[in-house]
């Protein structure tokens, strides 16, 4: 091997080695705080981009309507004092909510308290009341169970005027390499005295595509 060959081969080995070492390094995970208004869009299931507007639509409209009714009946007396016992969200959709469920509950609670007309009972009291009575959310639709639950909550110093139930459902339409899923959040407010219920829903349609082409065609 002459000197030129030696230098060429050595150079190739050195450069190749350096390239491998640099190009083949593992990088550290990256993250950033999202400061713009847009949430990331879940590609396989619903996420913040779906749930936030659903809550805004269903809870916002229901509380606005009920709050208005309450104020009219009360002859314009400020009504910050009607207490809502939010029992929880029942997920009947095709997707599991994972860690989103507890957060949705907190958002709804906060939304109730921000309404100005209603106050939400702390979820911890609601949970303790249900544990004490061993009642499920569905059981509370029976008047006798409702009275038992109310009695326990009163004992805890947490009387309430309304029960609030949330149900998330979904409907799926299959296409070729794509599907559409309609998410529906239904809020049901039950007056504990009269047993009368008021309902409000919000819906969002979402398309899931296996290929970029499908997504582009639906734009």
């Amino acid at each position: 091997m002459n000197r030129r060959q030696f230098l060429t081969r050595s150079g190739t080995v050195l450069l190749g080695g350096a390239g491998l070492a640099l190009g083949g390094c593992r990088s550290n995970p990256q993250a950033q705080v999202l400061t713009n208004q847009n949430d990331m869009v879940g590609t396989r299931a619903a996420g913040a981009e779906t749930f936030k507007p659903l809550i805004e639509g269903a809870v916002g409209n229901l509380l606005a309507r009920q709050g208005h009714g309450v104020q009219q009946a009360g002859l314009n007396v400020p009504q910050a004092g009607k207490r809502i016992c939010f029992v929880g969200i029942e997920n009947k959709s095709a997707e599991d909510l994972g860690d989103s469920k507890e957060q949705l509950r907190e958002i709804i609670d906060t939304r109730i308290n921000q309404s100005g007309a209603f106050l939400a009972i702390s979820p911890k009291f609601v949970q303790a009341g249900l544990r004490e009575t061993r009642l499920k959310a569905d059981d509370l639709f029976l008047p006798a169970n409702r009275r038992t639950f109310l009695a326990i909550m009163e004992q805890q110093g947490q009387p309430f005027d309304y029960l609030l139930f949330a149900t998330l459902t979904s409907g799926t339409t299959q296409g070729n390499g794509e599907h559409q899923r309609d998410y529906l959040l239904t809020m049901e407010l039950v007056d504990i005295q009269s047993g009368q219920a008021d309902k409000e829903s919000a819906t969002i349609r979402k398309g899931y595509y296996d290929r970029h082409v499908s997504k582009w065609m639906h734009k």
Partner: protein
Amino acid sequence: MSRRVPFALFVLCLSAGCSTHATRLVEVRTAYFDGDVAGARAKIETSLKKHPREADVLKLDQATVFLSDDKPREAEKLLREVRDRFDHLEQKSLAEGALAMLTDDQALAYAGEDYEKVLVRAFLALSNLMSDGQDAEAFALQVGEKQRQIVESGKAPDGKNPKESYKLVPVGAYLHAALREQTHVNYDDAARSLEQVCQWAPDCRQARQDLERVRGGHHSARGNGVLYVFTLVGRGPYKEERAEIPTQAALLIADRILSMTAKHSLPPTVAPVKVPRVVVPANEVQSVRVAVDGRGWGQTETVTDVGRLATEQADALMPYVIARAVARRVVKKGTVYTVKEALPSQAGGAVMEIGLDIAGVVWEATEAADTRCWGLLPEKIQVLRVELPAGEHQLALEPVGVHGGAQGPAQTATVRVEDGRNAYVLAGFPTGRLAGKVVCGQGR
């Protein structure tokens, strides 16, 4: 210059592993399975100092020992550390990959087998339940999330996904159901998770009973609470080195690897290559009989068969493991051939050629299979749910064999059950002897 080439090859072949993790693991397993938790810990600590490249798997073993020894916080800390490192190591390093082609797979940083990546999260959930339980639900959810991610990432360039056949780990979903049911609000979540458990572990009667209850019943009667007895039963899987004849499928994959990286073609015949094989020892303990205050409540039932999981996953990926070993063999042979070509044909060339052949043989012979693994896993994770009146109770756990015969003395512990809440117990019976202690936790 030319005289240094065989020497360089000789050094390179020595850098390939001669002893493997499997040989070092034997002592640790023996001590732990004999109930000598302190001895196992000491051996792991010694190995950690001597073999830093095996630190992650040794830390997993250390965490298992801590958990058995009623030190769940220490166990959790280690498990978190390894979980994060495995996640980081999922990225491929080209430099390491190239080195592994010249030595063996032990040159790669160990990123964990797929079942280990999932089980580390399941053990995190269990460890957390044995301490304050604040993060147990998050860990339980991570079990499912990781499984989905692993299966989705398994798609090969040819469109095939060997990971689609993976058996899934139900224990995460089971823990999630137990925690959600305890809220007395989220029975729907509990039912959803239990449906998954029933689908993934159809033989688990306990899960079927639980599903029936959450659909139509209640967590517990008023004045009662629930005790979940989790047991880690039997000696779990480990890896051994085996010489395997490459299968047709493996040769096809190896050919693809080579054609992707260089213009080599696969030689027509390939000798056996060394690969790791998952081994599950025969276990005498099959279950644990549970008695509370002298009354028998039944036996724990399998919610995750770790041995089967590990074996089936290893089988699914075996063609790829063999293929990598074949490709490495070809690269080594090719390197020796290239060096021979580069040598000047002069007097003494024949001697040099023989020297290179010998170096090549040694280079291949010193190659060892990567047998790094989580060595102290149980063969099965089992559970029994018992509804009890609130208060203190005396618990007795007795390891039993296939026909229900006692395999060792019953172990006792005092447990406290609160009204409307869950309490948890964890005990390891790798053999008829309890490993460590019966660990009790209140969760949240």
